[in-house]
């Protein structure tokens, strides 16, 4: 007892069970947030949700609302009355052609991107290590660092009649092949830079990284021993690809295809610079809301990619593309 009294005077113990508060504004704040985690979450999410909800989604809805208005043929003024006539206009052959052309292009670009991206993503996820992995990321990201417009104009030069591609074909004595390709109906043209093939090549080039990265991320998550297990159970490499690798990578490929598909559906610069003069959805929106001043029709056009993407994702979900998630 006396010992305790001597060594433990009235000052607080040096090593208390409950430590004093840190004090100050931030100390108090930390304690409050710890006791009320939901408040913290609310304060964290409120600003971005406000941005997303009001400025982002809100303006989108304002746009969509426009698509249910119509334009007065004579005065060119917007009639603010609910109508579906603008949507009916989309079905007119000249407008419907634009939609069809864009969807086919987007589908082809997406399929090609997926096919080209898979081996690259597979290599990066399975084999590349250390320095090679860094090299892979650099190789994929490097094109994204330069301006989109610069890249598209560079491609216009590459694909032009006087461009390096024509020259390379000539040097390889393959001019006949290039001429043959350009002679193809619909997709051909005077030169690659003013043909559908040119537009397609540039689209694939520009969107490819957006397919590679999610595919690679999905493949990265497939444990290597599942491949071994499949092989161990008697599956040939081809069967392992079909029954194990592809189903497990599919969510990544679908994620990539959302990028490539929707970006192609909405783009209006590439088909304007490289390609035939026939319009794509993006260009139609641009023309309708700008020079033509038909905002309702522009809005109706911009609803098309949204609806197509919704249908696409719904089908993908039905087919079980996200089962492995």
């Amino acid at each position, binding site marked *: 007892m006396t010992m305790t009294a001597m060594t433990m005077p009235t000052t607080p113990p040096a090593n208390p069970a409950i430590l004093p508060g840190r004090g100050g504004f931030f100390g108090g704040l930390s304690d409050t947030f710890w006791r009320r985690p939901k408040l913290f979450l609310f304060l964290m999410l409120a600003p971005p949700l406000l941005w997303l909800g009001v400025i982002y989604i809100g303006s989108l809805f304002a746009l969509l609302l426009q698509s249910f208005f119509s334009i007065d043929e004579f005065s060119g003024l917007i009639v603010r009355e609910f109508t579906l006539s603008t949507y009916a206009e989309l079905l007119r052959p000249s407008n419907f052609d634009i939609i069809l052309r864009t969807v086919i292009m987007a589908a082809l670009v997406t399929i090609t991107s997926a096919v080209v991206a898979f081996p690259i993503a597979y290599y990066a996820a399975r084999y590349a290590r250390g320095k090679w992995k860094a090299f892979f990321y650099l190789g994929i990201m490097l094109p994204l660092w330069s301006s989109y417009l610069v890249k598209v104009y560079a491609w216009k030069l590459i694909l032009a009649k006087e461009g390096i591609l024509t020259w390379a074909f000539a040097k390889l004595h393959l001019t006949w092949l290039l001429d043959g390709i350009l002679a193809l109906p619909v997709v051909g043209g005077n030169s690659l830079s003013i043909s559908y093939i040119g537009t397609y090549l540039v689209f694939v080039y520009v969107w490819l990284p957006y397919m590679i990265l999610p595919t690679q991320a999905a493949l990265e998550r497939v444990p290597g*021993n599942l491949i*071994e*297990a499949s092989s161990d159970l*008697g599956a*040939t490499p081809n069967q392992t690809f079909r029954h194990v690798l592809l189903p497990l990578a599919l969510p990544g490929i679908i994620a990539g295809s959302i990028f490539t598909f929707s970006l192609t559906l909405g783009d209006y610069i590439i088909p304007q610079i490289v390609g035939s003069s026939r319009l794509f959805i993006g260009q139609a929106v641009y023309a309708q809301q700008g020079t033509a001043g038909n905002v309702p029709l522009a809005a109706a056009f911009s609803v098309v990619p949204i609806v197509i993407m919704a249908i696409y994702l719904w089908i993908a979900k039905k087919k079980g593309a996200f089962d492995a998630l």
Partner: protein
Amino acid sequence: MKPAVQFENVSRHFGVVRAVDAVDLKIEPGEFYAMLGPSGSGKTTCLRLIAGFEQPSGGHIEIFGETAEGVPPYRRNVNTVFQDYALFPHLNILDNVAYGMMVRGIGKAERHRAADEALELVKLPGYGARKPGQLSGGQRQRVALARALVNKPKVLLLDEPLGALDLKLREQMQEELKSLQRALGITFIFVTHDQSEALSMADRVAVFNNGGIVQEGTPQDIYNRPRTRFVADFVGSSNVIAPEVMKSLGGEHRWASLRPEAIRLATEGGVSATVAATSFLGAGTRITAEVNGTRLHVMVPAGEANLAVGTPVRLDWSASEVHYMDGAA
């Protein structure tokens, strides 16, 4: 009859690392064979050489008399139970088990029936519709076993299959694996770093160290007559006694092992020692006694003695219980 698996001077080198170095082994059909060793000793690489996931850098491998080099895993009638089970997460349990039959082109009805039977064999009837993620570790382990066994492999490879299970479940699975192996008559090759698991389950044990087999024999052999100091250290709770100490205790000037059960507390004779620690193990008490600067474990039956630390005791054993061995690590 041809051996189920035969290694002739087999090596597998990864750069300068000799994961498996000049291994010879012969595993008989129907045998329950354990490869025991610390991590990095080459036992798992040996298993992967048999499965075909690795190709040997040198030497010759035969499976039931047929050359295995250059044969891909999918052409080997050998199945593996993986350490972390490697169940396909996107397939339900039934399709996981039926996978091997599916890739061989067996019809849906037939393969699902066989898969159902296999699930019954591992005591998981009615689990077919679930996904692997919904099962516990022990259940997944059984599914992995069913998925391998349903293909009726000539050799079943098990890579530390019980490592992730808790003690109770592990003991139960050990018994079940053993009786399953007896019932099916399939050659089981089992990799483990757990010596008690290897000793209790296997017909024959190979102790691995540094890419080679140090000793091969029945569990009794390995336990009672370890060939080297490494085996005695790794396999047993045996006392490993240095040559100088053994000489001072009245033995030969050689490395020796002495089982704790072989030492008894004596009232006179023997050597004098001091109790350094005791631990109660239920069925018995293990006394750690200090003799001539060395600590010896002594196992006494429960209730025989309740000795405080520091008590002087006398230890005795018969000279025939001392097993002399090679000092190599």
